[in-house]
């Protein structure tokens, strides 16, 4: 069906030479993009390559400084989001923009409510919402529930239903699969195929190359705010070529080999029979210095909850945690930190970083007492230390004075790691360490994690991407529904076997 | 304790009666001040007899603003004391409030309970007019105290302190000072209260009018908020604005504590300070010579209101008047208290 779309040939959207400047930054320095009706056009690029800005230009959030946008062959401008919507462009943002206090139906029709004489038509709204949800394969989501109570995956569905609730010609999907498990991704793809066969164009952004291969028709690659390649075939273009285009250098998407850790060493972190009602139970494992333990499992398996409980952000109801043989009092982050535990949480922006503050302030947040005497901060020492950590972790751009929000995902993750290294943490809990990190920066993060481990840290990595867990970890725990189903050396597992354990719901 | 109160009440009642006869020159409302009542003289008043004798027991509802100010506190307590004097008064006193809608509901409760008379010092005269009219229509006489309703039909009797008259008294006294001390080109300052209140506007108008009689005018004017702190704050600025002042009239002795503090802070005592309302503090300062004078605005209005309400409910008239009925309108005099007569008025001073 996408072949049919391609056969149409005529571009639905044609952007040429689009430039967008922000104070001090050129976000887009000449972008060309051509999207045809009925195709899935993938947008590839590292974080900071300009994808988000490009999307916002298309959605009418930003007005470009230069360049032309042709819509069906006619030059158009989108001075505000409403204008883009009127042309039939809908956007599903990565950061879900739903109003949590409103119901599913109200969210879907937010901004174009079905109403008569200014009074909302509730019945019609709900029926139409139900139709859309059914069409998306989720008839189980009730239009009258509040969005705040839905899972991330279901919120994604609502967001998509909202996009479809208008008469759309082009849908922009910004990493829609980030919060979905594989079954849900399959469902998403079914919907995408349905849309394209109806002639709707989809601009699809993802860091997962396998998804692009599966659903994409053509690929445009952005780098440093400019188009470096356009119209590549999504199925046949070699991975190495795509990565080269994105990064400007060849990156082997491989994990560095390493020697097996010393299994005889005394565990640095011991987790014994940890449990919390309704979340997880009987979780026990040891991590030795120099060892990386991975926890694999689908979203909702209880992996993040385990990490947060070890860290004291959730109070352990059963079991205990020991660092270096000493029991860590439960339910206190401060005591866990004092014991040498550091957590890089799943939601970096909302859980780890103060985005308006400087990079330096974010690094030193956990180590302030070390730089202060009687509460007075030695700013020289603080700065020197933070700068040295930032530069040794190769944070780009250099310097610790810029605002945190200006850094890309990968560099933000490095700041979180720098914080715990500066604090002297010996036990590092990493929850989805490469989420929102582009391919080039990922291998940097992998190398960093390995280095930390080799330096004697005990590392626990949680990830939804099974190859990542298998590639990084020495030993792997497989979790599903709050239970540990399997524990063993990573070398004895492969992706297929891990999926098998999870899907069968029992220890293999 | 009770004796001076009784004396005081008697004095005020007499003063009120006198003031009534003298209101023509100072009142800012031109309508008939006469006591004529449309109902004629068929109800037999009790003229000439002793009204203080016990009559039928009457239920009087009293409602006033929150007593967050010395003068208002004195209003409330004097009302209570007046009621306590008469064994035939059963006083229902509603909790003081600054919320007009709450006060309306107080009055509605009085109407429902079927009290014999209502004494009302409204938080806002206009806002309470409607409910007062309803009470009147229900046959309950309403005595309006201090802040006037916007309708003639909302009250049987209105007792007003004379705000305009206060200004006139202060202005006339200021003129007198200028004349006696032969001050050429005097600097006259005014420290008003809350500027948005009609009573403040009336006082300022009276002051300005009286000053113009002797060819003077207000050179500097500031407005405080009836609180000590605001009095101090605006006076500090005022003293900067005018490096030399001959006469200050401060509307309110409560904020006067702050005014006095500001004068002390700045080390300024060259001017004659005239106060307003007549707090005990002010009276003591006059005695000590730290203050020139204060213009009385008696906090006993509510007490008079209670007394009149009793007479109304018992169908009596005012015994000192030939007229057989309680007058429609009573405007209290605003005498000036100076060092010469302060001893006489000391009892009337309220603690702020």
């Amino acid at each position, binding site marked *: 069906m996408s072949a049919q779309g391609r056969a149409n040939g005529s571009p639905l959207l044609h952007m040429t030479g689009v430039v967008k400047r922000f104070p*001090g930054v050129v976000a887009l320095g000449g972008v060309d993009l051509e999207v045809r009706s009925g195709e899935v056009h993938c947008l590839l690029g590292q974080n900071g390559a300009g994808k988000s800005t490009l999307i916002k230009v298309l959605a009418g959030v930003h007005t470009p400084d230069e360049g032309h946008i042709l819509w069906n062959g006619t030059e158009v401008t989108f001075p505000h989001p409403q204008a883009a919507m009127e042309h039939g462009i809908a956007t599903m943002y990565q950061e879900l923009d739903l109003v949590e206090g409103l119901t599913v139906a109200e969210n879907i029709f937010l901004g174009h409510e079905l109403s008569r004489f200014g009074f909302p038509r509730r019945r019609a709204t709900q029926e139409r919402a139900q139709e859309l949800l059914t069409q998306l394969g989720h008839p189980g989501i009730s239009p009258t529930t509040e969005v705040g109570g839905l899972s991330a995956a279901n919120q994604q569905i609502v967001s998509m239903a909202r996009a479809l609730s208008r008469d759309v010609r082009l849908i922009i999907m910004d990493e829609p699969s980030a919060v979905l498990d594989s079954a849900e991704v399959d469902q998403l793809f079914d919907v995408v195929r349905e849309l394209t066969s109806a002639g709707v164009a989809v601009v699809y952004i993802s860091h997962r190359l396998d998804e692009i291969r599966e659903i994409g028709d053509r690929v445009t690659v952005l780098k440093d705010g400019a188009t470096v390649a356009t119209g590549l075939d999504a199925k046949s273009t070699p991975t190495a070529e795509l990565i080269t285009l994105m990064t400007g250098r060849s990156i082997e998407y491989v994990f560095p080999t390493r020697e097996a850790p010393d299994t005889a060493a005394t565990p640095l972190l011991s987790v014994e029979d940890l449990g919390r009602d309704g979340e997880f139970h009987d979780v026990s494992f040891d991590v030795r210095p120099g060892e990386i333990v991975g926890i694999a499992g689908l979203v909702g398996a209880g992996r993040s909850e385990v990490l947060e409980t070890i860290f004291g952000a959730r109070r352990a109801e059963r079991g205990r945690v020991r660092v270096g043989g000493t029991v860590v009092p439960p339910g206190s982050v401060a005591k*866990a930190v004092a014991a040498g535990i550091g957590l890089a949480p799943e939601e970096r922006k909302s859980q780890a*970083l103060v985005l308006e503050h400087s990079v330096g302030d974010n690094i030193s947040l956990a180590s302030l007492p070390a730089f202060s005497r009687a509460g007075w901060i030695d700013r020289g020492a603080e700065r*020197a230390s933070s700068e*040295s950590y930032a530069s040794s972790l190769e944070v780009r751009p250099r310097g610790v004075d810029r605002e945190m929000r200006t850094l890309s995902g990968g560099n933000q993750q490095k700041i979180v790691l720098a914080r715990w*290294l500066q604090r002297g943490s010996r036990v590092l809990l990493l929850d989805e360490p490469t989420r929102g990190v582009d391919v080039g920066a990922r291998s940097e993060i992998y*190398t960093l994690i390995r280095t930390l481990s080799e330096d004697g840290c005990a590392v626990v990595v949680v990830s939804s991407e099974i190859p990542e867990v298998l590639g990084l970890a020495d030993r792997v725990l497989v979790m599903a529904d709050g239970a540990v189903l399997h524990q063993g050396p990573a070398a004895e597992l492969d992706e297929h076997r891990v999926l098998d354990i999870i899907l069968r719901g029992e220890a293999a | 304790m009770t004796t001076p109160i009784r004396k005081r009440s008697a004095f005020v009642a007499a003063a009120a009666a006198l003031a009534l006869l003298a209101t023509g020159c100072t009142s800012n409302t031109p309508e008939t001040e006469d006591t004529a009542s449309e109902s004629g003289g068929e109800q037999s008043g009790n003229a000439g007899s002793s009204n203080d004798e016990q009559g039928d027991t009457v239920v009087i509802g009293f409602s006033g603003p929150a007593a967050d100010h010395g003068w208002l*506190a004195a209003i409330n307590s004097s009302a209570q004391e007046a009621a306590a004097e008469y064994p035939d008064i059963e006083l229902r006193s509603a909790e003081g409030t600054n919320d007009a809608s709450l006060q309306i509901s107080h009055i509605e409760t009085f109407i429902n309970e079927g009290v014999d008379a209502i004494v009302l010092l409204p938080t806002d005269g206009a806002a309470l007019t409607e409910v007062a009219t309803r009470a009147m229509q229900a046959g309950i006489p309403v005595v309006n105290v201090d802040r006037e309703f916007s309708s003639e039909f909302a009250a049987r009797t209105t007792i007003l302190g004379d705000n305009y008259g206060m200004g006139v008294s202060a202005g006339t006294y200021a003129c007198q000072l200028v004349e006696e001390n032969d001050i050429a080109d005097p600097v006259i300052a005014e420290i008003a209260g809350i500027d948005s209140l009609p009573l403040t506007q009336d006082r300022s108008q009276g002051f300005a009018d009286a000053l113009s009689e002797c060819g003077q005018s207000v050179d500097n004017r500031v407005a405080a908020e009836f609180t000590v*702190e605001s009095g101090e704050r605006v006076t500090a600025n005022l003293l900067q604005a005018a490096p030399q002042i001959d006469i200050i009239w401060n509307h309110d002795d409560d904020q006067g504590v702050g005014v006095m503090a500001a004068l002390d802070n700045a080390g300024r005592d060259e001017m004659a300070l005239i106060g307003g309302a007549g707090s005990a503090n002010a009276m003591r300062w006059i005695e000590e010579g730290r203050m020139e004078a204060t213009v009385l605005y008696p906090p006993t209005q509510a007490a008079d209101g209670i007394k009149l309400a009793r007479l109304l409910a018992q169908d009596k008239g005012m015994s000192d008047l030939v007229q057989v009925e309680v007058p429609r309108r009573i405007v209290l005099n605003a005498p000036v208290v100076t060092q010469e007569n302060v001893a006489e008025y000391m009892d009337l001073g309220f603690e702020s």
Partner: protein
Amino acid sequence: MSNELTSPENEVTGHDVAPADAPAVSAPGTAGLAGFLGSGLGRNLGLIIALLLLCAVGFATAGDRFASADNVLTILRLGSVIGVVSIGMTFVICGGGIDLSVGAIVALSSVWATTLATQTMAENVHWVVMVFTAIAVGAGCGLINGVLVAYGRVAPFIATLAMLAGARGLAEIIAQRRTQIIRDRDFITFFGGDVLGIPVLVIIFVLVSVFGWVLLNRTTFGRRTLAIGGNAEAARLAGIQVRRQTAMLYILLGIACGIAAVMIMARTTTGTSTHGQLYELDAIAAVVIGGTLLSGGRGTIVGTVLGVLIFTTLTNVFTLNNLDTSTQAVAKGVIIIAAVLLQQRVAERHRSSG
């Protein structure tokens, strides 16, 4: 990547841990000065311009009466009381909170410190008793606010709204709605006096401001305050005791209110339940005009001081020109908006260029 990163003897002591390839750090002194001129002056340039304009208007319309040392001291003295409250308010707002009860706390502190019992004790011991009483009452109210907000999870708006009503009511009960005159002349003389020509009240304001600036910009307390205001969850997951820190902010503001109560007692020679009316609005306005983010996470003491001075000067200039209160109110509204707009423009330009 250096193995020194996580060397086991890793005591975080700055240079020692720095890998060999760490860039040379510029001398802290120059960075500090440049930083102050760059950020402090630059960020507050709009406010400084607004204040200077106001002074120009004052000088043009009132001449020497405005520019006299006496008048300048009067402005500073008037700004001192609300200024001390505003410095405390800056901390609470930086930490993501709000406190509507400051005026009521000032009133309660002033009343409690001037009761017959307190004054008698002060006469027997020293007037310092009154000072301690006022500050202790303020701190106590702040503690209640802080505990309710931080541990009771009551929204700051609600908790402090309750305190606003409760504290002023209690003040009225204690004072029986009377104005309590302070008998101790030494107290009045001390706080009403001056040192080298500078009024003691102004000196207190300056000390509190300097203390506040240092606390916010140079200490772990300040950094943590900004962190919990900027992202409380991130601060919590960095091991900061967010609830304790939050409670401390309200106590700090309570202490500031206690100090302000002492100042107002000295100025007016009284303690009464009507002190401090609408201080909450004046303080919040000064803080926000100063450039502190109402949502927390970013704040400036210098801006707050300028905000207070702008307000106080405004009233002074109006009074010198004998303008009536209604005109003052209109002009005040216009100038608030103008100052904020000017401030935003200048700050934006500063940020984009820096």
